[in-house]
């Protein structure tokens, strides 16, 4: 039995009157890459955004049910959003580096969370080197740490967006279609990066690309109309779908 990283129970979510998630109960295993697939509007991004509570930016969202991360229900009133988002990082569809230098992007998290004594230059330098090495950008960028992050190639920007999560030592990394703005090589590079991070972080990836889900994930969740239809090992889900709706979708007859 593997450790569980995230468990949800009876999660419902409404955007005003529209119910986007219905009775979602899933268990996400620690250290694996889990992909969320399903047709547009099925609620996969919404579910992803529940895990670090960014949905709540919009005032008209109501959520019921429970999500446990590291054993703590993140919808409890005593949860600190700041600490939650520190341990649940997020990568967006379009690379969104902050309008700062590469260096400042990586240490941004440390700067906003860190105590003053942690912000010595040497510590920050070390964190930058470590994070950029982990995502394979260090060799390319070590001489250009002062360039604006927005001038990098898209693939590098997206890697940087992953790198800036790492100094905060997150438990979970949420990726919302992280490759949809990238070309084939960029996509492969990001996928390889995800493989190399496997085991240390729990990764959840939303994708429209079924081939990617198949290549890059250990487990796969198929969603439809706000419900979880099937959640199994990726191979099993693609080779022997148990629900006819899943079969229709992966064979391309639906969606």
């Amino acid at each position: 039995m593997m450790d569980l990283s995230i468990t949800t129970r009876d999660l419902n979510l409404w955007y005003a009157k529209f119910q986007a998630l219905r009775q979602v109960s899933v268990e996400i295993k620690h250290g694996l890459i889990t992909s969320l697939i399903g047709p547009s509007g099925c609620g996969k991004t919404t579910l992803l955004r529940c895990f670090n509570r960014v949905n709540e930016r919009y005032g008209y969202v109501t959520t019921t049910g429970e999500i446990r991360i590291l054993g703590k229900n993140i919808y409890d009133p005593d949860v600190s959003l700041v600490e939650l988002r520190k341990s649940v990082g997020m990568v967006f569809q379009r690379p969104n580096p902050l309008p700062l230098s590469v260096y400042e992007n990586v240490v941004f998290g440390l700067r906003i969370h860190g105590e003053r004594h942690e912000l010595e230059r040497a510590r920050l330098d070390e964190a930058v080197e470590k994070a950029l090495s982990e995502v394979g950008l260090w060799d390319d960028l070590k001489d250009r740490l002062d360039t604006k992050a927005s001038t990098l190639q898209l693939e590098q920007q997206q890697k940087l967006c992953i790198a800036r999560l790492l100094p905060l030592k997150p438990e979970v990394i949420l990726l919302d279609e992280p490759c949809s703005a990238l070309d084939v090589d960029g996509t492969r590079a990001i996928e390889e990066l995800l493989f190399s991070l496997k085991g240390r972080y729990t990764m959840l990836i939303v994708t429209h690309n079924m081939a990617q889900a198949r290549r890059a994930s250990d487990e796969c969740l198929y969603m439809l109309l706000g419900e979880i239809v099937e959640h199994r090992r990726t191979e099993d889900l693609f080779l022997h779908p148990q629900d006819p709706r899943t079969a229709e979708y992966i064979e391309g007859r639906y969606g």
Partner: protein
Amino acid sequence: MAEPSHPGGRRPGWQALDRGQRARPWEWVAEQAIRVVSVTAIVLVFLIFVFVMREALPVLLGRVNSAAAQERRALPVEQMDRLDPEELRQYLELSRKEFAEMDRDTLRLLMEVKLEAAEEVPEDKDAPLNTAAWRYLLGPHQWTGYDRPAYIWQPVSSIHKYNIVPLIVGSLKTSVVALLFAVPLALAAALYVSQLAPPRLKEWVKPGIELLAGIPSVVLGFFGLVVLATFLQQVCGYASRLNAFVAGIALGLACIPVIFSIAEDALTSVPRSFSEAALALGSSRWQAAWQVVLPAAVPGVFAAIVLGFGRAVGETMVVLMASGNASLLTWSVFDSTRTMTATIAAELAETVFGGHHYRILFLLGALLFAVTFLSNLLGELVIQRLKRRLEGGR
């Protein structure tokens, strides 16, 4: 040679393909009309500029003489008949048309006026000075009765003193007070409304503040004159009730909507992905707004301040009513002060058309035009840069 046959015997002209613009005549007419109107607007603005500059040009070129005692001596009235008509016309400084329309008695009266004016020339060492020359417009001069050189604006005294420095300083004083008051308030409001306020509140607050822009400046001036002046004097306890400080605060009320509206647009147009990224990294909304969104919007915010400055310098009614209008050259904001705009508004109607006072007021106008034009241009350039940076950078 026979025409190539088309299906159904149709020619290329069958759907007006060959009619060019005439195929849609009304659109063509509308287009031309709009073009004429827009060109007219541009030409009008340009003509206003030309007019202001034309009236001010003689001063700029040093061709205006405002000496109280002109060099030419006055002639006794009896000599009128001895001058030939052309000499008489030049002596009385009339145009040919005016001269032709006047009868003998009028001319005689004018001769008397001229003589009286010559007799009234003050016995003053400064009387022969051309006070509209640059060194008197900008530099200090020790006028008769003063114990040291001073910058004096006294256009209707017997010696016309036209030093514009007190007016420029007055304008700067009120504008700086206005900006010091308006910028923090307007920026804080913009940051709050664009980044922190719940959407429903934003829907009310933003139009509310922008509605302030619709308050006529005479109302703001009245408010400054009657309410603010008394209140601020009770609080701060300074001597003169109407002063640069009161005018500046009232002026600030006029600037707030300008600065707020542009700064709010700049902050809102910072891509949401920036604040989203910061929030997802665990920053509070305040940190995201302050450390990410505000720095990204700095050019737009700067432009807002520059345009606010343009408004403050150019605003007339508020300062005319609330500043006290004494042309003192001091650095204290609690002294009564007189701005360039208020001077023009108060004095232009009483000047001699085409005279030196009139021309110097137009010089002030040209100066104002230049200042507001330059600050607007600067603001506009900075906004363009911001746009390019945000659109091209990604």
